[in-house]
């Protein structure tokens, strides 16, 4: 039996499992690129404006840290600077998830054991995962290559940008393949690969913002190679750079195959660490458990917030000169931020984003309740002397505490980032902390929607709660510039919060928000108290909706004996 036997079946299985996720993510990444390209053409139509922006942007280290170098003044060069590194990072994340999902995640779950007992070679799962990842990156490159010229961007630059992004994805397919061979858990494998992505970002950022004699460190980073290809560059593309990610990918994939050929099933290089033989004093009661289960993701969110908001805050100093060049963008920002001055509008919009990010976190923390319930992990807790309300509140406390922490982090980081550059730390930090805190009621209102849904419509709660967050986000971000009617804007709780810094604070809408939040939580907890605990099918309500749509073909059948509570 050869090592690759069964690759065909495993590859088609991989495509079958990813048939929705893979095309959706590929199209999403390419669409963001194309839409940005179109917007840039609208926002900066004149070359003189672009030259002015290029000069001021080139002087701002925060922007270079966040986005990378600008290699020209054409629309294409702007696009490459705006989305080259971040588009590549998105492709890399997609690649990492695909590769780990079909290798270590399946192995950890025991599925590969079943597969491996059949006539399947040792290398086949890895080959199948890499084929899926290569397909995704080739599709991203191909679609970009087709779409950007359609927007009248030069073909050569489009091809260089597309290939450099796809190439970066391929390099990280190798990184993820190696990670999946080293770690024994899917989380560990993803952690290795994402840490490598973070290191690549920092190396590139240091090379771009540090002194000239340090600029070589960009060459150690696959994300730096994307910039170094100089797509749409004023001095022409550097095609030979595209060979670097391919070579790196080949070396890493070869190493992964060598390791896969020699190791035990479910074995790794990094050993699974033993833990405490007895629980510490912190793991006492449902609250201790909820915080223990959720502190890892929260720490990652806080770290991300520090990084993102410090950089965005630092960028605020140059925002006037950059945005001043584009009346359309200036007007957009003034509308989203509702401010008189541009820098305040920018900071207000930034704190609005912080509120939305905190709402995303708080919703995920509340929905952990549902994951615990469907994973049969609520049952052992609720079978002890822990009431349902206490159990519900334990995870809600993580949502509230985590959201407060994230908003404080965002306000503090942005205040420090802006304050240090503008020499006004003592005024900016309290100002932005207050601005972040002003968004807390809206954040909590969205988390309360998740609590309500979890209590009353458990089966639908995950989908509906995320829809609510997405709706609020879309209204908040797109409503003001498109001048949607007031009643639409009022759906988003963020419309009701004070527009700080710079705006005025009205107590009445905040009190309303707090009252509604409290009512939603109480109703949700009351629902939790009265319903069955477990993973059951759709609620009666959505069954009625579905049956009325489908014409209820089951009506005539009698009752069924059995244990599967899946049907309506």
């Amino acid at each position, binding site marked *: 039996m050869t090592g690759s036997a069964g690759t065909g079946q495993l590859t088609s299985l991989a495509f079958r499992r990813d048939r929705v996720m893979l095309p959706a993510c590929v199209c999403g990444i390419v669409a963001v690129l194309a839409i940005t390209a179109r917007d840039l053409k609208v926002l900066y139509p004149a070359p003189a404006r672009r030259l002015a922006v290029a000069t001021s942007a080139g002087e701002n280290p925060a922007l270079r840290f966040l986005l990378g170098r600008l290699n020209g003044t054409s629309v294409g060069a702007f696009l490459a600077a705006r989305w080259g590194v971040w588009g590549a990072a998105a492709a890399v994340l997609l690649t990492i998830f695909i590769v780990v999902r079909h290798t270590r995640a399946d192995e*950890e779950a025991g599925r590969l054991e079943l597969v491996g007992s059949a006539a399947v070679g040792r290398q086949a799962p890895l080959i199948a995962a890499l084929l899926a990842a290569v397909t995704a990156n080739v599709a991203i490159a191909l679609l970009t290559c087709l779409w950007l010229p359609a927007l009248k961007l030069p073909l050569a630059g489009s091809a260089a940008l597309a290939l450099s992004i796809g190439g970066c994805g391929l390099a990280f397919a190798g990184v993820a393949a190696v990670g999946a061979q080293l770690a024994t*858990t899917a989380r560990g494998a993803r952690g290795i690969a994402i840490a490598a992505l973070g290191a690549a970002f920092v190396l590139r950022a240091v090379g771009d913002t540090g002194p000239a004699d340090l600029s070589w460190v960009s060459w150690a980073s696959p994300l730096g190679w994307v910039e170094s290809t100089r797509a749409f560059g004023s001095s022409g593309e550097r095609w030979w750079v595209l060979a670097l990610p391919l070579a790196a990918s080949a070396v890493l994939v070869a190493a992964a195959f060598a390791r896969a050929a020699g190791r035990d099933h479910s074995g790794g290089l990094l050993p*699974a*660490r*033993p*833990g*405490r*033989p*007895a*629980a*510490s004093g912190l*793991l*006492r*009661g*449902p609250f*201790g*458990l909820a915080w*223990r*289960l959720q502190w*890892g993701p929260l720490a990652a969110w806080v770290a991300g917030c520090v990084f993102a908001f410090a950089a965005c805050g630092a960028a605020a100093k140059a925002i006037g000169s950059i945005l001043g060049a584009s009346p359309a963008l200036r007007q957009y920002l003034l509308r989203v931020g509702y401010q008189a001055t541009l820098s305040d509008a920018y900071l207000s919009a930034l704190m609005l984003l912080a509120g939305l990010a905190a709402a995303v976190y708080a919703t995920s923390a509340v929905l952990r309740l549902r994951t615990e319930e469907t*994973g*049969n*992990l609520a*049952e*052992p*807790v*609720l*079978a*002890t*002397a*822990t*009431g349902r309300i206490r159990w519900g509140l334990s995870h809600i406390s993580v949502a509230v505490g985590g959201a407060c922490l994230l908003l404080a982090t965002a306000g503090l980081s942005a205040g420090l980032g802006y304050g240090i550059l503008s020499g006004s730390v003592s005024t900016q930090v309290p100002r932005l902390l207050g601005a972040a805190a002003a968004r807390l009621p809206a954040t909590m209102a969205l988390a309360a929607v998740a609590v309500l849904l979890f209590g009353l419509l458990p089966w639908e709660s995950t989908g509906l709660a995320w829809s609510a967050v997405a709706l609020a986000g879309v209204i908040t971000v797109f409503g003001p510039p498109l001048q949607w009617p007031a009643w639409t804007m009022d759906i988003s709780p963020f419309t009701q919060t004070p527009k700080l810094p710079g705006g005025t604070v009205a107590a009445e809408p905040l009190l309303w928000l707090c009252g509604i939040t409290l009512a939603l939580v109480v109703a949700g907890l009351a629902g939790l108290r*009265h*319903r*069955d*605990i*477990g993973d*059951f*099918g759709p609620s009666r309500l959505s*069954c009625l909706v579905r049956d009325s749509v489908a014409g209820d073909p*089951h009506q005539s*059948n009698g*009752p*069924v*004996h*059995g*244990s*599967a*509570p899946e*049907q*309506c």
Partner: protein
Amino acid sequence: MKPRAQTPSGDVVLRAVGLTKRFGRVVALDGLDLEVRAGEVHAFLGPNGAGKTTTIRILLGLLKADAGKATLLGGDPWRDAVELHRRLAYVPGDLTLWPSLTGGEIIDLLGRLRGGIDAQRRRALTERFGLDTSTKARAYSRGNRQKVALIAALASRAELLLLDEPTAGLDPLMEATFRDCVNDERHDGRTILLSSHILAEAEALADRVTIIRDGRAVETGTLAEMRHLATISVEAELAAPVALSGMAAVHELTVTGTVVRCHVDHAALDEVLGRMHQAGIRSLTCRPPTLEELFLRHYSPGRSAAGAGR
């Protein structure tokens, strides 16, 4: 070890009358009756999907019965859930553990959630089951995960233990250890509801048995009572043919030459043996049905739930 049971022996600790539970159009329980007395090991038998786990979840107040009434340790399992849970311990059938916690942490956590853990018992049980408590739950095998849940429940000193298929995944050595532990608990006066489909386990451990089918109890009592109600299997080698085929109390009669095999109702045993005696007995084996035979009778195709085994 001193028993902590507060209910006098023989009293009813757990009673369910006419429990009904539907999930949409699926009927999980259809008027189930169950009675567990203090200090007994009560086996709750039925194949997968018969409604055992649903019953236990109702008794724990996780599910609300559509109809019927359940009483647990003198309280209402739905209304008084938290108070009752201080006095019972539970091993779930669909066992999952938090993958990032170690076995030791989970045992301590569940003990604390229940209102305290007996450190000495925890140590003794960990040793007895040979569990490495510093391993993360994601690295445990099925049997080791089961040990974690068993130790957490047995270390609790609760009055009532609800065990849902507690030996799933255990090796034969650990199964024997588990049986020893159950016998110790019985001597300490604790009450155990043991849901299982492993009949040898129930036969070895249980004082009383309830068999359920399609969400309804079809047979309940001590093994001796159930045997008494059931038929006795008779196998005899006779000197001359004997006329048994006409008797209403004789079932599943097969005659191969001079060897006769049949199942006989208790009341008619005298008469059947008398006729055999007249024909001349060369050899004779009479034995009561095993639990497996009792059980399978309720589930053999063509038998209705009401008439089975009689």
